[in-house]
């Protein structure tokens, strides 16, 4: 097997596949995708519901169908894919160490690398729920995998903690498979999942969504027998006297995702505490030159269409770097979250004459109606760009397309705020 590639992509989910497509479109063909599972497609393989591809393909597809379209493009372009192979190490000088049951230990070098390892679910350990540790507690993604890929129903009487999209989707899935879902609990006063999922996964089946509620203890010796739930105040502290017991044999947690950045750290990539992903410039290049990041490993996305778009951009930029087409930067501008914004990606913009526009992705830290997202420079008060949005919620990522001239007029930093 060949050991030198122009571009190595780590992870064969939607981000990795779209990055490869982006690189091919920009003239780089010598690409290797490395995926640890037996199939390409990443998390989409277990997302058998519809809701993918409205923006990318103009039709509503299931996860496997969406993945297949990108896989077909990648295979047609003749890109090499190594599956069932896990990357163990990446270095600053773009040396990649892989272990595979078939090939054993393999080593590769590349001129550029795209990190596309996705994310994993926060587990109950991070939740600090009191009580014993009986069987029957698992994350929504684990339940999804058991039910959709392995054909195993993990329980009959279910309580779901967290109203993230995976939790909502699984509430419906359990109900369709004949299990009873008593409630979905959400500690925040709003659902953290998409509204359409609250409607079609909970309301359709009469499953109650208990906002401002959390699980305060888990009962059961060997197997979960029930949970105590309480209402919480705005500081998320349980309110005494509001406890109620709900009998169940399974507690499903859907309390957030964390980008999977162990490899990035090994490569010396600097991470942003707010996103859990790499700090990048507008080309999605990390602090290690020639190493790019995209998809859920960079920031957690709600929509795969956004993942594909971001990843295609990362792949195209990696190709430009390989071809020596990147214009030298004039200076670097910091992008910082202002009022109402939790984080912004990219964290830096390298100012180039050639750039026409720059996409900023962000998450608000609260719910806003009829809001305006403003970009302001160097602490001045007059905004350089304004974007109206009907509805902003922390559960949905916001993207704005900023004219790059804005950054050229700016000296040190821009901040993004909601008014």
């Amino acid at each position, binding site marked *: 097997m060949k050991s030198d590639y122009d571009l190595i992509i780590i992870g064969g989910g939607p981000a990795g596949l779209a990055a490869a497509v982006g690189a091919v479109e920009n003239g780089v063909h010598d690409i290797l995708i490395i995926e640890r599972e037996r199939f390409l497609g990443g998390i989409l393989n277990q997302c*058998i519901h519809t809701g993918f591809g409205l923006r990318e393909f103009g039709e509503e597809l299931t996860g496997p169908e969406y993945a297949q379209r990108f896989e077909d493009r990648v295979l047609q372009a003749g890109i090499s894919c190594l599956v069932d192979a896990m990357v163990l190490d990446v270095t600053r000088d773009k040396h990649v160490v892989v272990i595979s049951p078939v090939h054993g230990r393999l080593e590769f070098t590349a001129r550029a690398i795209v990190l596309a390892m996705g994310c994993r679910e926060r587990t109950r350990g991070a939740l600090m729920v009191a009580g014993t540790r009986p069987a029957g507690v698992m*994350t929504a993604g684990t339940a999804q995998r058991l039910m959709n890929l392995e*054909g195993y129903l993990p329980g009959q009487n279910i309580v779901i903690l967290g109203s993230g999209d995976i939790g909502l989707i699984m509430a419906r899935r359990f109900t369709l498979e004949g299990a009873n879902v008593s409630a979905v609990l959400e500690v925040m006063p709003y659902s953290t999942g998409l509204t359409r999922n609250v409607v079609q996964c909970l309301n359709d089946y009469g499953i109650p969504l208990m906002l401002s509620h959390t699980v305060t203890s888990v009962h059961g010796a060997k197997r979960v027998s029930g949970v105590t739930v309480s209402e919480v105040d705005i500081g998320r502290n349980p309110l005494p006297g509001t406890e109620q017991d709900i009998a169940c044999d399974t507690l499903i947690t859907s309390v957030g995702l964390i980008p999977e950045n162990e490899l990035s750290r090994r490569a010396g990539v600097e991470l942003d505490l707010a996103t859990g992903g790499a700090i990048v410039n507008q080309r999605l290049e990390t602090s290690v030159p020639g190493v790019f990041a995209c998809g859920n490993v960079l920031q957690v996305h709600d929509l795969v269409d956004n993942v594909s778009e971001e990843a295609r951009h990362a792949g195209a930029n990696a190709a430009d770097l390989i071809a020596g087409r990147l214009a030298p930067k004039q200076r670097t501008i910091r992008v910082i979250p202002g009022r109402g914004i939790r984080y912004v990606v990219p964290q830096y913009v390298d100012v180039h004459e050639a750039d026409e526009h720059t996409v900023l992705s962000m998450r608000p830290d609260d719910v806003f109606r009829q809001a305006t997202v403003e970009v302001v420079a160097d602490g001045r008060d007059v905004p350089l760009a304004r974007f109206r949005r009907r509805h902003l919620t922390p559960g949905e990522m916001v993207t704005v397309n900023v004219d790059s001239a804005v950054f050229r007029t700016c000296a040190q930093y821009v901040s993004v705020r909601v008014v």
Partner: protein
Amino acid sequence: MSSTTRIVTCIVCPEGCKVSVSTDGDTITAVSGHGCRRGLGYARQEAVAPMRTLTTSVRVSGGVLSLVSVKTSAPVPRERLLDIMTCVRRCCLSAPVSQGQVVLTNVLELGVDLVATRSVERGSPATVHEPPHGG
């Protein structure tokens, strides 16, 4: 006849518009609040007879996976979803299955088919050696 107005949350795209639909008996008299034309059609349908696309999975023998994901070829009446599930549960396929293959025709005489949404080649399911990475 008296006219009633209800709010329908559009689920066609992530925007989730709140569409208000006024009806007079069986006739729709006014629709407002939709962000686009797709939402108009959805809200009109939702106000009289909600329809949903069903996605689930069907057992497969002799394949690299023991399940294949499927969907209804078009939306079906919402109140028939659980009936369709009962019928799907009895179904078992043998590998290979290809994406787009019709798994059941004219399910419960509803005029829609059940279609495979992925391919499953012949082989044996490997045991999962990685902890699920969620998503």
